[in-house]
């Protein structure tokens, strides 16, 4: 099976450790991934802000870059959601079969059929189910099943977990006050868990919540799910 990593522009540019963690994790599970260098962005920012023509150009590029692979794995629920739910309406059908794009937890549980990835992470962690992974993709409890199998990890439940953190792409700046009101409630719930680390399957949401927690000096940090799953007793993940 030829598997490609779609790093996503946010992770590639700001959080390279997450993409490295995906490579290491999948490699450990016997699945070598390729990183086609023609990839850039799925076009979600443009599409959601009202620029569908520019998003279409990026969606066409995505289809070209990943054609020929058996599967694409992305460490982002919202980018995978954009590709799966929105791209088909943007990219003209060229007769070629569409390469399936999976969010990381879907790829692990549904394709590689593994929930215990052999990880070790001795920390107190809480999990935020990001909106698009939950409602566009329907990843359900896959990330939680993966986290529960991590040795040493103490999982604490996040209150009102399914509420949006208030990121929403350009919403965070166009409606900054409302976004911050939503963020404040999310941070309160995170802090109430007493966790050291908040994890999720999407770096854009984590960038938002993590940026807020950092501003508050809350003492809780954010870490992508991939980096927890990549960590082992022999090789602890140092992000």
């Amino acid at each position, binding site marked *: 099976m030829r598997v490609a990593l779609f*790093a996503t*522009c946010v*992770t*590639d*540019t*700001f*959080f*390279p*450790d997450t*993409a*490295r963690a995906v490579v290491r994790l999948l490699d450990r599970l016997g699945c070598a991934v390729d*990183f086609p*260098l*023609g*990839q*850039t*962005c799925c*076009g979600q*920012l*443009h*599409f*959601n*802000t*009202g*620029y*569908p023509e*520019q998003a279409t*150009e*990026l969606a066409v590029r995505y289809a070209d870059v990943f054609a020929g692979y058996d599967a694409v794995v992305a460490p982002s629920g919202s980018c995978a959601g954009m590709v799966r739910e929105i791209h088909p309406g943007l990219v003209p059908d060229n007769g070629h079969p569409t390469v399936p794009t999976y969010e990381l937890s879907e790829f692990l549980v549904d394709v590689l059929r593994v929930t215990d990835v052999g990880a070790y992470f001795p920390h107190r962690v809480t999990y935020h189910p990001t*909106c*698009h992974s939950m*409602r*566009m993709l329907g990843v359900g409890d896959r990330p939680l099943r993966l986290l529960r199998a991590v040795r040493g990890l103490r999982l604490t439940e996040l209150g009102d977990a*399914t*509420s*949006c953190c*208030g*990121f*929403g*792409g350009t*919403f*965070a*700046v*166009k*409606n*900054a*006050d*409302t*976004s*911050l*009101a*939503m*963020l404040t409630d999310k941070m309160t719930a995170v802090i109430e868990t007493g966790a050291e680390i908040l994890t999720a399957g999407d770096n854009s949401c984590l*960038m*938002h919540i*993590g*940026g*807020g927690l*950092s*501003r508050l000096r809350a003492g809780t940090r954010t870490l992508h799910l991939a980096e927890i799953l990549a960590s082992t007793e022999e090789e602890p993940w140092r992000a």
Partner: protein
Amino acid sequence: MASVNRNPVTWLGTPVFPTAAKAALADPQLRANLRNATHTIRTKRAHVVGELADWEQLRQAGAAIKDDVLANLGGYLRRLEAAVTERGGVVHWASDAAEANRIVLDLVRASGADEVVKVKSMATMEIGLNEALADGGVNAVETDLAELIVQLGHDRPSHILVPAIHRNRSEIREIFRREMPDVPADLDDEPRALAEAARRHLRRKFLSAKVAISGANFGVADTGTILVVESEGNGRMCVTLPETLITVMGIEKLVPTWSDLEVFLQLLPRSSTAERMNPYTSAWTGVTPGDGPAHFHLVLLDNGRTATLADQVGSQALRCIRCSACLNVCPVYERTGGQAYGSVYPGPIGAILAPQLAGDPHDPQAASLPFASSLCGACYEVCPVRINIPEVLTHLRADVVRAKGKRTPEAIGMAALAWILREPSRYETAQRAGSLARFLARDGKISRLPGPGAKWTMGRDAPVPPAESFRAWWKRTHD
């Protein structure tokens, strides 16, 4: 001076959403009221919806019936008109708010009444009927408790189902004391006492009214039957006691047959009040000699609906049955409340319906509404007729962007970004240049960004770009 043709579905003078929201967010009483109310109804709704094993099939059926109605609207409307007329009702057609208001005012004047009682109705709120009647010398009395609170408070509604959701009971007591001439001086703020005061006040109105005005939850095309679904029984009084009943109904409120109501009378109460069945469902067909109103007028209202129907993506908003489930789960509505949307239709459904009905892409307030969402999708998940609200939001955002043209700073920035992202070599160059922003970091944080980034750093630190992107690392280690 407002233009004669301006659609009153959005309120003249309301600031754009981010500005209106900022003021609402700073009101602790409002925030507490809303959080309490929305969380309570959310939980109850989830419980009663969970009782039905076939909820998803009901949603699909509801969407399919409404789509059939919308696809064949002309035929169904003619069928309804024929059925109502045959049973002794009179049908009027109104293309916009002004025409509907004029028809209703003329009908009231012809009856000789100078006061009318009203059933809670979104359509009449949408067209500003009460104000139009007042201008014509007719006093309209709202008989739904929450609607009465809004009316007596000279206020605006903030929720589709619970228009006074932003008021608490001590505020309501003050409004009643000030505005009800017959209220006891020692009125306290117990809900029972407040309801009793309203009941006494309204009872006199019901018994003296010659004309009632209602909206409609459903109109059955086959039989000409109109339905009003309610909780308090005030609607039942209005549609049975007066001599003349005038119903203003949006043209999309049709269902083809009586048996289609089976679907909607399951979907609506559970989604709306989180009840298995609402207490009062009134249905009437034309007039019945010796029983109920002697005169029945049905005003069929367009007011932007035909234009909305012409939009392939946006028309699904016309499936809406006004349950308000999307408001109750919306994280934006929960914080800002309804008045920030500047329309009788607030929340997620308002953000897609109000701008479409208003039909003016250059109106900055209406144009701000499709952006009043984080696209979290909670609204779509609960919508009983499966309106894909996030899909319509992004569709309407594109309309707004097109109307503003290509020369706005945002459009230029987005075009530049797309130009970079179209070509990996440009993207890599931009990553290397952007990486220099790491030198803005102090103690491992970027707490202040210039330009549009300042809106980000007003409440969040920005990520410090790494010295090496993932792509650069991959090239260095793999190729």
